[in-house]
């Protein structure tokens, strides 16, 4: 599998969904060799899902992408049985969810999963607050408790102050935040997002993607995210499954999909995505040549730089957290002044680049900086450095290989 250390949360095996007279047949055997169009012509049936199998780890954002009609919605609806699959198995935390009784299924939907829909699906006759509290209400939570919790999630998605409005007086982006709040309210382990941002215009969509990433950083939910936009898939996903005519044609990390598309269909998608938005800084960075600790003396700093032949050095805390930078010249001045410890001049405390940022994002911040840039990991520890010119060069290389491949 994907070599991740997180425990397995969801496991889908040979899932089929067929609409029409062929649905009662032993679909796997009868339809295996036939294309979607053939089945439609000969058997008057639609294959919405064809033998789909995949695993999702706990805390992972698993993106399912494909063209319209490729079966994405069918797949995600099967996971909570809003649609009954024709054949196959779905295991969530080791339990066979298709074998659930009606009561068990209701419990499962109430506590394990939360879903967000492309067309929001808010209750128009209820306020934003009551919409956010919907899941808790059907669970039978007392009013005061569910209101308090709904307020909390509404604040989380940035909708404080809108509690008493009706969904119809909100913009599309705000309505989808209500949808997200509703899904988060019962604190489910699994979030199912069916094209949550597709109905929003591009700028708002980008904001919502960012907010989802920030929320996910905090919550570490298992997310199944449906989209038909590879750029979005790459931004939010840890792994991506690409669907075509109901079948999954490739599963991989964004970088795997971009660098190694399984077939022409996948390659077609990747052409629409600019590589500079996919390749991360971590891919380009080098390990820092020299660094000093903030309680080191100016003398140490000067010697470190002279030993390495460098004209500047990064300064870190004892734990390795990035603080700033000092040049050889400044260190020498500090030595003459007789400072006890080296300090980074204020104008040399760059906002460091995150290892997982794309080249394009990194460049946006680094454009007016010359020389080396510090690269940190998720917890702020200095893990490497990258030349600004290397970033620019990589961005242009990406552009030109794209141009070449078109």
């Amino acid at each position: 599998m994907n070599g991740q250390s997180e425990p397995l949360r969801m496991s889908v095996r040979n899932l089929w969904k067929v609409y029409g007279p062929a649905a009662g047949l032993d679909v796997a055997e009868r339809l295996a060799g036939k294309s979607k169009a053939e089945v439609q012509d000969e058997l008057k049936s639609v294959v919405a899902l064809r033998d789909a199998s995949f695993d999702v780890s706990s805390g992972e954002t698993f993106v399912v992408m494909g063209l319209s009609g490729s079966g994405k919605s069918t797949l995600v609806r099967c996971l909570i049985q809003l649609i009954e699959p024709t054949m196959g198995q779905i295991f969530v935390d080791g339990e066979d969810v298709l074998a659930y009784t009606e009561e068990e299924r209701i419990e499962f939907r109430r506590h394990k999963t939360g879903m967000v829909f492309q067309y929001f699906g808010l209750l128009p006759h209820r306020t934003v607050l009551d919409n956010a509290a919907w899941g808790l209400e059907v669970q039978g939570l007392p009013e005061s408790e569910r209101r308090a919790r709904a307020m909390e999630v509404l604040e989380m998605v940035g909708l404080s102050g809108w509690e008493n409005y009706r969904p119809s007086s909100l913009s599309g982006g705000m309505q989808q935040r209500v949808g997200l709040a509703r899904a988060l309210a019962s604190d489910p382990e699994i979030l199912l997002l069916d094209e949550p941002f597709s109905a929003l215009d591009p700028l708002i969509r980008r904001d919502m993607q960012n907010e989802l990433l920030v929320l996910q950083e905090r919550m570490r939910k298992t997310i199944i995210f449906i989209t038909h936009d590879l750029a979005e898939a790459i931004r939010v996903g840890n792994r991506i499954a690409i669907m075509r005519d109901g079948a999954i044609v490739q599963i991989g990390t964004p970088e795997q999909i971009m660098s190694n598309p399984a077939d022409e269909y996948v390659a077609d998608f990747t052409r629409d995505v600019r590589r500079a938005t996919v390749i991360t800084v971590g891919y380009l960075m080098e390990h820092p040549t020299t660094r000093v600790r903030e309680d080191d003396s100016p003398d140490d700093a000067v010697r470190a730089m002279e030993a390495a032949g460098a004209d500047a050095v990064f300064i870190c805390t004892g734990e390795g957290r990035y603080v700033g930078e000092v040049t050889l010249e400044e260190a020498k001045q500090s030595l003459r002044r007789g400072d006890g410890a080296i300090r980074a001049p204020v104008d040399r405390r760059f906002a460091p680049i995150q290892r997982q940022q794309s080249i394009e994002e990194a460049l946006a911040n680094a454009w007016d900086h010359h020389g080396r840039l510090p690269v940190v990991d998720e917890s702020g520890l200095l893990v490497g450095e990258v030349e600004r010119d290397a970033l620019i060069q990589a961005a242009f290389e990406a552009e030109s290989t794209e141009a070449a491949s078109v």
Partner: protein
Amino acid sequence: MAVATPPTQAGRPQGPPSAPPRKGFQLNRWQRVALPIGGFVVAILVAAGIWGSEMEFPADVGGPIADWVNDTIRTITRNFSFIFDTIADVVLRFLLWLEAIFLWIPWPVMVGGIGYVAWRMVSWRMALFSMLALVAVGFAGLWPSAMETTALIVVAVVISIAVAIPLGILAARSNTVDAILRPFLDGMQTMPSFVYLVPAIMLFGIGNVPAIFATVIYAVPPAIRLTSLGIRQVTPQVVEAAQSFGTTRRQLLLKVQLPMAIPSIMAGVNQTTMMALAMVVVGALVGAGGLGEDVLRALQRFQPGEALLGGLAIVVLAIIVDRVTQAWAKERQEALRTDAH
């Protein structure tokens, strides 16, 4: 590596494979309708050629059917009269109580109250019209009759709603119930009302109760239809989203489908009320009081003036009820409006 063991490859147990779909000779929709009709017409022409136009029906079943219905209704009346007496008693009490309240309220208070409601729900113009028209009804000496008719209509509409909402819900949830109910509803609306006045008298005697019974039969179909329609029309996206959070069927009905069907149910109530008003004079035939009785009496005595006044008073009631309930339905509709997308 993932920790949990992946499940086996085997699919879920399958039901027996059904027969492969039929191929070959198949009819499209038009052919399916046109062929039998064409065949029927040809058969008639052939039969007419053989036997000529003197052909008689081989048997008369009309008589026995009518006899059977007569017997059945008589049997019901004889053996279950206690049930119908109880129903009649409850309905009558409710009616008399309402009537007493309406007549007890001083007319200026009533007129002012209705004017206020018309002003809040519709417009000041409607309020002005309602008040002037009601005062005119009073000056025409028809106030007590108008109040009695109003009480009759309220009782008939309340009973209709009590019947229509559960039936409408059943019809919305099951296509079978819908298919069974449909011909009955069509029949109730088109069957001349005199037909069920007779059994109404047999079951409930003469007076207001059989009139209410006949009114309900005539007026209830749109309320049932529009309740069912309102529930079926709730956007599938909303239903699906609600369900994804683990609603029971009951929660879905009470918290999503019914509230969202309210504008449609209100439209049904509006139609039911208008149809009930149309039955006022027919009801008087079996002994109902109120404006209907006034009109009927004028008719029997050849007093077109009195008949016109009574008729106009019914029209006034109808207009007020119609505008107010419509405005209310519209308001609810506005409240439900989803953002256009």
